[in-house]
């Protein structure tokens, strides 16, 4: 853990130094600009430049990192006293499966739409990481995105990504036209009916 503490603080210090340099940067199109010119406190009588505040914040970050490193060498902070590894085998595996699942989820959103990606992710998580019964996994991973679809896309008109064009045309446009015409009561009924299906499946899978 101590080694991880020092390496992380060192990387963050490097990052802070980059931020300090970056704060002094001028507009990309201004070729006459001199680096650091906009970090001053009163430039041409018109107050601090745009780099003033970020520069001193980045400097603050840099100093904090140096302080953290000193504390770690003197073994003053709890992580630098700990003998446990930064990440044990379980943590590494968990990060790979869950973190990897999340990245896969994000990639799928652009391809097969938000709601389909949710269905795939829910099924993956419940079936392979949660080891729930197949039936429950399938029903949950269909009902949850359906609920979210009704709530976000239909009721709140917060439209989510629809994936490739043909998916949008083939599925979402007709579905949207159908559900938007329904009364609020019908939508609530849809929630209730699918909720009941989910509850029954959950109860059945417990035995």
């Amino acid at each position, binding site marked *: 853990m101590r080694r991880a503490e020092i390496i992380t603080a060192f990387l963050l210090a490097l990052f802070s130094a980059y931020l300090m340099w970056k704060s002094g940067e001028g*507009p*990309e*199109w*201004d070729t006459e600009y001199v680096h650091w010119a906009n970090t001053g406190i009163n430039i041409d*009588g018109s107050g601090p430049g745009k780099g003033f505040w970020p520069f001193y914040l980045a400097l603050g970050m840099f100093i904090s990192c140096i302080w953290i490193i000193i504390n770690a060498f003197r073994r003053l902070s709890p992580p630098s006293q700990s003998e446990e590894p930064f990440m044990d085998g379980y943590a590494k595996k968990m990060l790979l499966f869950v973190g990897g699942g999340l990245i896969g989820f994000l990639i799928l959103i652009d391809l097969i739409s938000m709601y389909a990606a949710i269905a795939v992710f829910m099924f993956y998580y419940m079936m392979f990481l949660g080891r729930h019964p197949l039936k429950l996994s399938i029903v949950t991973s269909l009902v949850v995105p359906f609920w979210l679809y009704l709530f976000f896309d239909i009721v709140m*008109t917060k*439209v989510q990504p629809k994936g490739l064009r043909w998916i949008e045309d083939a599925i979402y*446009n007709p579905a949207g036209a159908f559900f938007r015409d329904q009364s609020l009561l019908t939508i609530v009924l849809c929630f209730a009916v699918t909720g009941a299906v989910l509850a029954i499946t959950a109860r059945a899978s417990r035995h």
Partner: protein
Amino acid sequence: MNLVKKLVLGATALGMVATATAAVAFEPSKPVDFVIMAGKGGGADKMARLMQSIVEKEGLADKPLVPTNKSGGSGAEALTYMKGVNDPDHTIMVTLNSFFTTPLRQPGLKVDSMAFAPVGRMAEDTFLLWVHKDEGISTFQEFLAEAGKRGNKWVMGGTGKNSEDNIVTDHLNKAFGLDIKYIPYKGGGAVAKDLAGKQIQSSVNNPSEALGFYESGDVIPLVAFTNERLPLFPEVPTLNEIGIGEPFAYFMQRAVVGAPGMSDEAQAYYTELFTKVYASDDWQKYKKSKSLMGDFISGSDLEDYWATQIERHEKILKASGAIK
């Protein structure tokens, strides 16, 4: 509003709808992104939200307009957002004069004002010079004397750097040898509030922004930067009429534009929509009560108007040294 007028307006609207359905193939298939290139509470913001409310109230569109404020960098944030938007047919924006000035000042944004789709100009807003009543100033001449005496301790608040307010302030400084300090704010509402609180000494707010504090007696207008006196402030002279310095009049466009790359069908749809908004009672009432000027123009007329405005702003900005 009498019944006859309502019927006539209704009939015109119906006629428009009839022609619209015949000619316009485009209908939005999802909520329309309605970008406001200014902060909350300013003139542009209030106006945009009013337009949205009128669309909702009169049921003019099937899909709602969803307003979002993108106030960063005198409109630079909104302009780059519009340029990069992936669905131009569902993205429209309410613009100010920063629509001309920001691309001129920042060539690196690679934004071309003329590439936007001209949907419709809803009005031209006016500028007045406001001071707090406790300054004990009641004429423009007294203002010149007092501001000259205090040098850079006289502070003008305005919306954004190198924006409309800044252009008017620069003009005052240059034409009358003043050294007024200009402080940029995020929106006109905050400027009006700080003037009423005597945090700043003057502002060049639009009437819609300062009206509340004018009616409560906190702030007073000294001069109007228009060609003729405004009906709402008949006792306030125009700068031209005072006759010191060169003639100077300055207006702010209040126009709706479509994202670059918008299809002609979509542009026609939005022009129809905002023609109806313009004709509505609420808009006409608002226009009158906020001392807005200018008629509805669209299409190539609006593009011509833009071209002359860009030329004029280029001159102004060059004269003040903001661009080379």
